[in-house]
């Protein structure tokens, strides 16, 4: 028992303070049938400059995790418990006014459908100008002093610069366009420019590339990665696509039914998946050149109004033990940077490990 510690302080080899600490995050929605426990005890840390992938299937709670960090779950009654520590403050305890100063400024978000997340009745210019006025007023004043131009020209110059960064061309024309007049790829570049305008500490990318064509996807991914490296921005990358996670992320957290079941460095998780669910997911990825039947994780995600007692995965698990039906598995440190929530890896069950 002594070589197993609870996941309270997951740190990579370099001893840096995480920018974001999520502790025991619980989110429940009130729906007509009762209370759906969407998230149950989510814990993770996000370190400066790293890219952390949050992977899981539809309904596993990845998007809810992302949105509840900034209290962006609209129109739902429910409750949120736990701690989201950012710069010594708990975001969950903040008022809307206080949160507003963090949203978009220090923590930005990029969403799944780029076109529908741009306001259709304002030009792209009008929308980015507003953000520049909001976050870069100092830079605008500076530019005004230096070049003796009007406020408007200064803002426009900065907007051009920012849009240039994300690889948009013919910007003068682009600024006059509306959301329905640009392609998905352009729209997502524009959204990324908007999100990174204030050089935030954290960028949350909520399925940011899932709606794009594969070729565009690659460009956008590279862009995001490069920009964030330059601006020292950490990324919380939410995706259902293991391939993308493998390509760009430093660490991967696998979510299942509102819990993080396994979290590790990308290499480790792909080389040595521990949780039965992670194993199943990786097995389900088809391999080129091998003519074997496609494997899948049997069963469906459980009903979150009446979640299974104990481990939420036990009904689909091949390695089910008695304890799985009774107790919730804690997160166990398997080795450095590799934690898993599964009773298989608890010491007294170690004999089951290699089955």
């Amino acid at each position, binding site marked *: 028992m002594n070589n197993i510690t609870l996941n309270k302080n997951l740190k990579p080899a370099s001893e840096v303070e995480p920018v974001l600490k999520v502790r025991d995050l619980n989110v429940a*929605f009130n*729906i*007509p*049938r009762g209370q759906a426990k969407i998230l149950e005890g989510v814990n993770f840390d996000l370190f400066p400059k790293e890219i952390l992938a949050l992977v899981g*299937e*539809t*309904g596993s709670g990845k998007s809810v995790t992302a949105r509840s960090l900034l209290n962006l779950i609209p129109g739902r009654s429910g409750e949120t418990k736990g701690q989201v520590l950012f710069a010594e403050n708990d975001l969950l305890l903040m008022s809307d006014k206080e949160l507003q100063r963090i949203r978009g400024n220090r923590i930005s978000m990029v969403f799944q459908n780029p076109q529908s997340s741009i306001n259709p009745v304002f030009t792209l210019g009008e929308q980015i100008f507003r953000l520049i006025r909001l976050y870069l007023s100092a830079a605008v004043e500076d530019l005004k002093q230096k070049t003796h131009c009007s406020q408007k020209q200064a803002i426009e110059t900065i907007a051009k610069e920012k849009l240039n960064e994300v690889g948009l061309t013919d910007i003068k024309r682009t600024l006059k366009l509306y959301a329905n007049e640009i392609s998905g790829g352009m729209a997502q570049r524009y959204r990324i420019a908007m999100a990174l305008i204030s050089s935030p500490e954290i960028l949350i990318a909520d399925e940011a590339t*899932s*709606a*794009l*064509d*594969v070729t565009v*996807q690659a460009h956008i991914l590279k862009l995001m990665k490069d920009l964030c490296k330059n601006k020292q921005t950490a990324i919380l990358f939410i995706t*259902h*696509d*293991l*391939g*993308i996670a493998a390509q760009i992320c430093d660490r991967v957290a696998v979510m299942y039914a509102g819990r993080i079941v396994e979290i590790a460095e990308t290499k480790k998780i792909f080389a040595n998946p521990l949780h039965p669910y992670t194993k199943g*997911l990786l097995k*389900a*990825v*088809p391999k080129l050149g091998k003519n074997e039947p*496609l494997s*899948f*994780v049997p069963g*469906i*995600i459980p009903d979150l109004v009446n979640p299974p007692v104990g481990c939420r995965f036990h009904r689909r698990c091949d390695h089910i033990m008695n304890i799985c039906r009774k107790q919730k598995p804690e997160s166990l440190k398997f080795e450095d940077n590799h934690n898993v929530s599964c009773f298989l890896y608890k010491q007294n069950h170690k004999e089951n490990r290699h089955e």
Partner: protein
Amino acid sequence: MKENPMAMQTDSYDIMAQKVIQEHRKVKWFQLRRLLKRKAAFLSLIILVLALVAVLFAPWIAPYPEQGQGAVNLEHRLQAPSPSYFLGTDVYGRDMLSRVIWGGRISLFGGVCIVFFAALIGVPLGLWAGYNEGISGAVISRVVELFLSFPSTLIAMAISILIGAGWFTAIIALIIPWWPWYTRLVQGEVLSIKQTLYVEAAQMLGYGKLYIIFRHLLPNIMTPVLVMILLDLGPAIIAIGLLSFIGLGTQPPMADWGLMVWEGAPNILSEWWISIVPGCAMFMVVIAFNIFGDALKDIFDSKG
């Protein structure tokens, strides 16, 4: 889109999600229970039930059933509300309470008829026009647009003038500009459902048009249609009243609520109850339909 083979795992869940959405659009009992928890909706339901009972059992509930049907009672003309004439009497001495109950029969039944037949004509045409984008669908769409591009009540008035005044002709005159609203609603719904996976799957499996329309489309449009029917009952009752008020609808000695308000209008300053009683009845029933329909709509529209 999701061409990356690594993403295929989740696609099966999209299909499942579709199924869930499909199921959620059906009426569920817990939703109805939720409806009754709303005070306003509950209150309107009580008003509607009371009105319905009064109207159905008019011969037993009305104190003077024959006066309700128009028999005059000249020695008790224009009496203010009193114990024997609970809501007063009109210019012919008829008991207002009985008149309102019998008038409610005509108004309510008329409203139900208009909406029912409008839906009966409009819904199948909407299903057809939404599912077939060929010539027949286009023709239906054009006809619908033509009707909707002019105020319905004016069309009804014109038709009513043409085919003559009367309760029955007024109903016909109102159904004619009313059904296109249902066609448009259903057509829009069908166009969006048609693109969903389960309809496409049914098409690919080779099911016939009619089978898909009745098995897959109809159950999914029932909820919005039912809500619209409920929300239309109030306006339909008002519409008959509007026609009757200018003499194009119900003819005396029968009277619906609209005509009764008209009959009392000349005496409004002295014998106010002759107009106010049927007017209030109309207002209460219409607002009850509206609030109940709104609550129902809210519940069906809300997610989950």
